[in-house]
């Protein structure tokens, strides 16, 4: 039904419906399934997200590469000390993002959102806002539906893969999807949701994908933590009425062009960037020798 941000705005305004409803109606049509079947699947997604975003706080299972671990617990302790710089919302969101990242890196069950490497961002945003604002599970599901529409448009017109477009594509898409979800959950308009998505993408435009030793651990987990914060502040800006100067579809195209231009050393090959630093290379060698 919709293939662009422009389509989303047009359909939502013509039918006078929110983005989540458009996403749901299109999915029913595209996959020949019923609304209840789609919602059942989405509840399963939310269930997996809930688990992954809490498992890493208590679970000390070692990650495969052993590069990361324990970040989520550290943030939790700081949160409990009530002596934080960024306050409970931001810290809770980071804690959850770190949790899913660690869970993923230690072979836990996650929902790729839109990828495994960026899987911490959307759960952290949606679940933190749900809890902090006393929202219901139904609101979280509406948030996820909204995020899926944004992710679909980015996939169709650009890419969400780090190997194809760098981290700006992967964590960029995740943050854009998450920010749109949050705007929806807090009662913003479809225009605001896409403004938030545009701002999120722009905030990390050009970011390279440079995982140490080629593993989904560092700097990935910290980019999940900063990714959810990016999503939250972008949603805040949009809800305050700050507009994206450049429309969503043009931002997505710009991101794609940069992704294509990006040297292959910076697209998941673990050659350049953080992976290519002397310490990064040393860590890689040590892992090899295990």
């Amino acid at each position, binding site marked *: 039904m919709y293939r662009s941000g422009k389509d989303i705005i047009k359909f939502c305004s013509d039918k006078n419906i929110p983005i989540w409803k458009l996403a749901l109606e299109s999915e029913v049509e595209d996959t020949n399934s019923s609304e209840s079947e789609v919602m059942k699947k989405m509840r*399963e997604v939310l269930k997996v997200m809930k688990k992954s975003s809490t498992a890493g706080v208590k679970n000390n299972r070692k990650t495969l590469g052993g590069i990361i671990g324990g970040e989520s617990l550290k943030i939790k302790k700081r949160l409990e000390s009530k002596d934080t710089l960024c306050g409970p919302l931001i810290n809770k969101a980071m804690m959850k993002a770190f949790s899913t990242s660690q869970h993923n890196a230690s072979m836990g069950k996650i929902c790729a959102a839109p990828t495994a490497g960026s899987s911490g961002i959307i759960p952290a945003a949606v679940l933190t806002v749900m809890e902090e604002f006393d929202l219901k599970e139904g609101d979280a599901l509406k948030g996820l539906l909204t995020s899926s529409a944004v992710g679909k448009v980015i996939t169709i017109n650009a890419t969400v*893969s780090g190997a194809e477009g760098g981290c700006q594509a992967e964590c960029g898409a995740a943050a854009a*999807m998450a920010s749109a979800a949050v705007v929806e959950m807090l009662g913003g308009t479809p225009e605001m949701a896409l403004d938030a998505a545009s701002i999120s993408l722009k905030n990390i435009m050009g970011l390279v994908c440079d995982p140490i030793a080629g593993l989904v651990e560092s700097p990935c987990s910290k980019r999940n933590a900063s990714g959810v914060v990016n999503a939250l502040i972008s949603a805040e800006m949009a809800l305050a009425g700050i507009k994206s100067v450049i429309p969503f579809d043009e931002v997505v195209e710009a991101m794609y062009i940069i992704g294509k231009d990006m040297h292959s050393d910076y697209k998941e090959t673990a050659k350049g960037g953080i992976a290519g630093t002397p310490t990064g290379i040393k860590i890689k060698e040590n892992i090899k020798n295990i």
Partner: protein
Amino acid sequence: MKDVNSIFEVLGPIMIGPSSSHTAGAARLGKIARYAAQKDIKKILVYLHGSFAETGDGHGTKKAIAAGLLGMEPYDERLRNSLNIIKERDIDIHFESKELEVNHPNTAMIIIEKKKGEKVTVTGSSIGGGAVTVTEINGFNVELSGDYYTIITKHIDAKGIIRDVTGILAEEGVNIANMKVVRGYDKKEASMVIETDEIVGEKVVDKIKKIKNMTDVIYILPIKENDDV
């Protein structure tokens, strides 16, 4: 740029981490190899090529392939423990890094020896997002995704054999989605790869097996179907 059929391609798949291509895709390749070999697996040798060889350990690629060979789905929590489970089943599994003559960096060649000594080989690549393409089965060049029910025949290249096979499928009300016929280098042995919309029962496969000049028939279940471990 690619089409999206369902929003669950964007919010999904639900999988065991850490990587859709190195873990989820690897499990799918293992599962297709299991379907090709069916039962009585005794020994497995897996050649890992490219990025599978280089970063496979850090991505749980070996565990994922073993899990697939046990019939597990990419979201099965037991995937983490698959190398122990496969040992408990008295299946001998061994992995080696090897440069294979393939184009894709995430490729594995799986060689299965069955209890009666029969060998089955499957080569396939993980092409991103958990999707796979199998390029070789038992020495025949194929191209299959595991999304369809697939029948693969090995037969003597004789006139009318394609008609016989498609005739049986038509009688059983099975619709062919894709079909490819290839002939071996010696021009004697040939193979059909038939992807169908319906699941074909074992009785039908047995009928195809009995066709004159047919040497072997294997079938691959669509990867979405659950399977017992």
